[in-house]
């Protein structure tokens, strides 16, 4: 069954090709079928391959499929290799499965849009590219997927191309992530320079032997890779693109900007974990980036008025948790949180999409309200997603994944108490802003009356995701719940296990209680602040609130420091100053031309005088000097 591995990315690509080339000619029904079926089949094969991987693991828990030799020049010989291990399998499962659900949702959601085929072709392209990213066996191939998902993100953010703002957001997303990508490319140059290969596994095995721990090379490489990860995963300082990326349709936000693409950075760091292990400084930086990002984004999420922007900042914040986990060495915890986050965040985005759709494309939460009664189905699934995001204890998937991260933030070797503090503060914030969002949208008085009915193709994915948001956490219980850490165990085949410095189950339980209390406290706080009193109205224009609202002013700073100078620089020299040099040469000769043509009077006697003068000068110079 493993030999079918190549069909997993190939199916979405085939779907993309069909839709891109013949999309115009096909009916909407065929388009919808092609789009979702290709992803669905891919998901099915993933599951089959996964089962066969689990039941009959290949040697070393690694399966490789070499398709063809890509580039071959001397020692530089990246191949098109698919690489399957536990890490990529988890990612593949989420990508194809959640991807399929979102495709299914889109068949109903996008039904009234023009460019139906275009949408599905881009989506299929995205799924295929994302699969390449996580299945790539060497870094160049990974980079291919990495850039291709960026492209799809660009295309889908700007899907409604007629509005220039969407185009701007799309370009911003692409260019900001491209900065990270370029840093990552430099990391690849460094690695190739050192090892003469870009095979991931070869680098990982040779790295500890050939590079000293903490050496400048290791740190530089790790930082460069981190740069790529930070760009893609919208972490500090390159997080500015993600809130604007909400200009795309909701399924896009769900698939690309919540569930899969933005977690590519997590995947990259987990994939190249050895490099980070060998560069402790860089790993600490990863943790710091994660901790700071999760707090900053949390505060920003607290003040947003656009429901999708709340979710966007929350995504940034949740990925911050994953980075924190990576930074403290809890590799599998990051992957676990990635998985549950994919479920509940996709659910939230899709739910928000339903709300937006039924309210005539209204994004502003303060014009919603009271939807609990008019849209009960949406309310309930949204509530489940929110509970999971807020990590409501015991019954939600978010609780389990976040709990492990918080525990290792405290207990892991080389961690710091501040990381835990940031995490716990973040979980309070998460509870507050999530509840705020739910309260404002679904409770209170009705401000806009929804219209239309929700199609079945939209409901099914929501139900499935809601279920997964609840039970998705049960595959990995915390250590003090008994020895039931199946996901970590599975990942341990390919990722090192986290080393806890503290092994006291009592303390672990204590911390769980603390965070549970804080979550409940956060919900109550939100109830007081946003349902009982309308705090937003009072603060909306003031000081720090405004500062948070604009994402801590990063956009403004970049505008002043980067964009304005670049635009200014290019506009002042639009006509190329070198051109003036050549024009100058031409002018110079023109000047002498005009001058000398004055001498050309046409009078023969004048010329004779000229000859006389010339003769005098010539004789004096040549003979008498």
């Amino acid at each position, binding site marked *: 069954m493993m030999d079918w591995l190549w069909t997993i990315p190939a199916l979405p690509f085939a779907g993309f090709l069909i839709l891109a080339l013949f999309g115009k000619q096909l009916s909407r029904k065929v388009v919808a079928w092609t789009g979702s079926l290709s992803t669905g089949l891919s998901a099915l094969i993933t599951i089959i391959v996964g089962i066969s991987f689990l039941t009959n693991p290949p040697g070393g828990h690694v399966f490789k499929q070499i398709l063809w030799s890509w580039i071959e020049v001397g020692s530089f010989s990246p191949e098109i290799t698919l690489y399957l291990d536990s890490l990529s399998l988890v990612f593949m499962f989420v990508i194809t499965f959640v991807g399929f659900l979102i495709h299914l949702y889109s068949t109903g959601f996008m039904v009234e849009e023009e460019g139906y085929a275009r949408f599905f072709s881009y989506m299929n392209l995205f799924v295929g590219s994302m699969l390449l990213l996580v299945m790539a066996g060497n870094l160049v191939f990974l980079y291919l997927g990495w850039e291709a998902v960026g492209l799809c993100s660009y295309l889908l953010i700007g899907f409604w191309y007629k509005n220039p703002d969407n185009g701007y957001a799309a370009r911003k997303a692409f260019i900001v992530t491209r900065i990270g990508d370029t840093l990552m490319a430099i990391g690849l140059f460094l690695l190739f320079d050192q090892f003469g290969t870009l095979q991931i596994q070869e680098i990982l095995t040779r790295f500890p032997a050939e590079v000293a721990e903490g050496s400048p090379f290791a740190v530089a490489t790790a930082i460069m890779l981190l740069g790529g990860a930070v760009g893609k995963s919208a972490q500090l300082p390159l997080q500015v693109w993600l809130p604007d990326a909400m200009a795309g349709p909701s399924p896009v936000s769900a698939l690309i900007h919540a569930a899969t693409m933005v977690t590519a950075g997590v995947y990259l760091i987990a994939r190249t974990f050895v490099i980070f292990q060998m560069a402790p400084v860089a790993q600490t930086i990863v943790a710091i980036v994660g901790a700071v990002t999760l707090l900053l984004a949390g505060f920003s999420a607290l003040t947003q008025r656009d429901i999708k922007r709340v979710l966007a900042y929350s995504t940034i914040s949740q990925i911050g948790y994953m980075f924190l986990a990576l930074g403290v060495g809890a590799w599998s915890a990051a992957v676990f949180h990635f998985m549950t986050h994919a479920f509940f965040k996709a659910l939230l985005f899709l739910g928000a999409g339903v709300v937006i759709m039924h309210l005539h494309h209204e994004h502003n939460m303060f014009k919603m309200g009271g939807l609990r009664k008019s849209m009960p189905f949406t309310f309930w699934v949204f509530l489940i997603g929110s509970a999971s995001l807020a990590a409501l204890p015991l019954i939600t998937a978010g609780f389990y994944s976040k709990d492990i991260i918080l525990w290792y933030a405290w207990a892991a070797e080389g961690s710091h108490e501040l990381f835990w503090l940031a995490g716990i503060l973040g979980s309070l914030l998460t509870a507050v802003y999530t509840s705020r969002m739910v309260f404002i949208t679904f409770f209170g008085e009705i401000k806009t009356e929804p219209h239309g009915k929700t199609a079945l193709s939209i409901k099914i994915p929501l139900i499935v995701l809601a279920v997964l948001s609840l039970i998705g956490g049960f595959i990995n219980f915390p250590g003090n719940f008994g020895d039931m850490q199946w996901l970590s165990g599975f990942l341990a085949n390919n990722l090192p296990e986290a080393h806890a410095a503290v092994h006291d189950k009592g303390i672990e339980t204590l911390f769980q209680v603390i965070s549970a209390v804080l979550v409940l406290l956060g919900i109550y706080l939100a109830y007081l602040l946003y349902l009982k009193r309308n705090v937003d109205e009072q603060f909306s224009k003031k000081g720090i609130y405004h500062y948070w609202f604009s994402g801590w002013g990063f956009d403004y700073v970049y505008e002043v420091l980067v964009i304005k100078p670049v635009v200014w620089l290019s506009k002042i020299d639009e006509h190329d100053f070198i051109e003036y040099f050549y024009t100058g040469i031409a002018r110079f000769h023109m000047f002498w031309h005009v001058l000398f043509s004055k001498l050309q*009077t046409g*009078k023969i*006697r004048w010329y*004779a005088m000229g000859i*006389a003068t010339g003769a005098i000068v010539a004789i004096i110079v040549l003979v008498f000097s």
Partner: protein
Amino acid sequence: MINISLETGLLLAGILFFMGFLGVMVRRNVIFMLMSVEVMLNAAGIAFVMAGSHWHQPDGQVMFIFILTMAAAEVSVGLAILLQLHKHYKSLDADAANKMKG
């Protein structure tokens, strides 16, 4: 037969040459300019002949014959142009024809 030096001969040639040159520069009438040119050519011929006599070689005289030929050709063309000039401008003023185009 005579007792003069080459210098003297060349002096004669030089005087005539520069008189001719002066004529070219001063006169505006094309006929006179052509005449002046003839004088200059003739002076050059004198120089050749004198030099030939000095060294007892016929080459100087041969050169004179060439100059003569050239002068004849030049005068015939020059006078033809002069006629056209006169027809065109109704004048023999060399400065009238200063446009450098037909």
